């Protein structure tokens, strides 16, 4: 029984690492032949997969660690406290995407956001100590960071575009991109993500046919 469990664990780990390596390959495709050995070394440095349940956090406001997370599957919300001292869901991050404590990693400041799990999520994690070792020798780490950053910028630009338009379209886009949000995200989380009131989110969901029976407001 233990052997079977252990074999299953090894299989899950192998599959998770394949997903990560494929992600690297997608990001660094133009230089892949030159970089492949380095990417395999990087992949080996990730720990996991780890499982998180809804409500658990990757990191909280004020945290100063900046582990690098690669999401295998699931959905996580970045709850951000703006300079106005108000909290919003700034971004959602799902399978195949990367996230880190941006405030610490990029600005050297304690986090002003919290990464909170919305639906059961599996991740691989690269610790800063491992990243530090990678940076000591000449490596394509900066190139990989740039490619990951480009995707994040594209995503944030798209979010701005969606926020400037119709909220219904934004919600449909969200559900298409992260189908788990429809089942797992609460009305409060959806309202926070779209920047509307709870009553408005009910109206939108009702209009789109996502609320079958009338719920109390």
């Amino acid at each position, binding site marked *: 029984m233990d052997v079977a469990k252990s074999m299953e664990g090894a299989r899950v780990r192998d599959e998770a690492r394949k997903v990560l390596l494929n992600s690297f390959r997608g990001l660094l495709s133009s230089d892949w032949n030159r970089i492949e050995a380095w990417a395999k070394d990087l992949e080996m440095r990730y720990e996991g997969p780890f499982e998180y349940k809804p409500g658990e956090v990757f990191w909280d406001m004020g945290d100063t660690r900046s582990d690098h997370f690669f999401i295998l599957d699931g959905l996580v919300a970045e709850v951000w406290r703006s300079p106005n001292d108000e909290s919003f869901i700034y971004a959602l991050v799902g399978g195949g995407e990367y996230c880190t404590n941006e405030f610490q990693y990029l600005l050297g400041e304690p986090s002003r956001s919290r990464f909170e799990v919305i639906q059961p999520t599996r991740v691989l994690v690269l610790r800063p100590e491992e990243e530090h070792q990678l940076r000591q020798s000449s490596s394509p780490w*900066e190139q990989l960071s*740039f490619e990951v*950053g480009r995707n994040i910028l594209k995503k944030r630009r798209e979010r*701005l*575009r969606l926020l400037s338009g119709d909220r219904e379209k934004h919600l449909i886009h969200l559900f298409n991109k992260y189908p788990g949000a429809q089942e797992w995200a609460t009305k409060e989380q959806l309202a926070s993500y*779209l920047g509307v009131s709870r009553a408005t989110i009910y109206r939108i969901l009702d209009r789109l046919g996502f609320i079958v029976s009338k719920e109390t407001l």
Partner: protein
Amino acid sequence: MDLSLKIYDKLSLAMGSSGTPYRGGLLALARAFQPLPSFRRGNHVWNPGELPAGLYYNLEAVFAEEDVQPDGKSVVRLVLPDQLFFCEETYFYNEPSTTRMRCITAGSVWKVSASDYAMIHREFGLGFDLINLLSLKTLGEYRSRTAQLLQCAPKVRLEQAVRQYPSLLSALTREELASFLLLSRSSVHRILSKTYGRG
């Protein structure tokens, strides 16, 4: 102050300690900026579909970067005086622009051409540090702008925008301000009258 020194200070300050190894490269980059013909209100620095490669420095104008989509347009960001700016799609992805950079307040702009930029980048081995720095600047701008648009209360939305862009009220017409904040003109008028004593 010599303009290239001003730009150099801006670049090296932004790069902080990571800029130290690149002093020569940053100085060469700052010196390579050349003036473009002055922009007047309504002129465009670039339009959708163009490939505006290179890096720009806005000396004294005000620009609005507009995202042009089939179902309308939205303002992505404002570029105020003394700011570096660039077309993100072309600079980061070598793709045609989907935005229009429109001049709101007249002034002059300086630019490093794509070929000069590439040559200096190669010669001084600027690597990914400079581009990552500019990504960081863009990330910060997006975060602030997203917060503005997530803010439900119009008054707070305007106050936050004024904090981010202190010269906002004098730079934009009321109509432009309403469009930037996604508010109606009457809301903008009401808030300005009540909060800032100007309508």
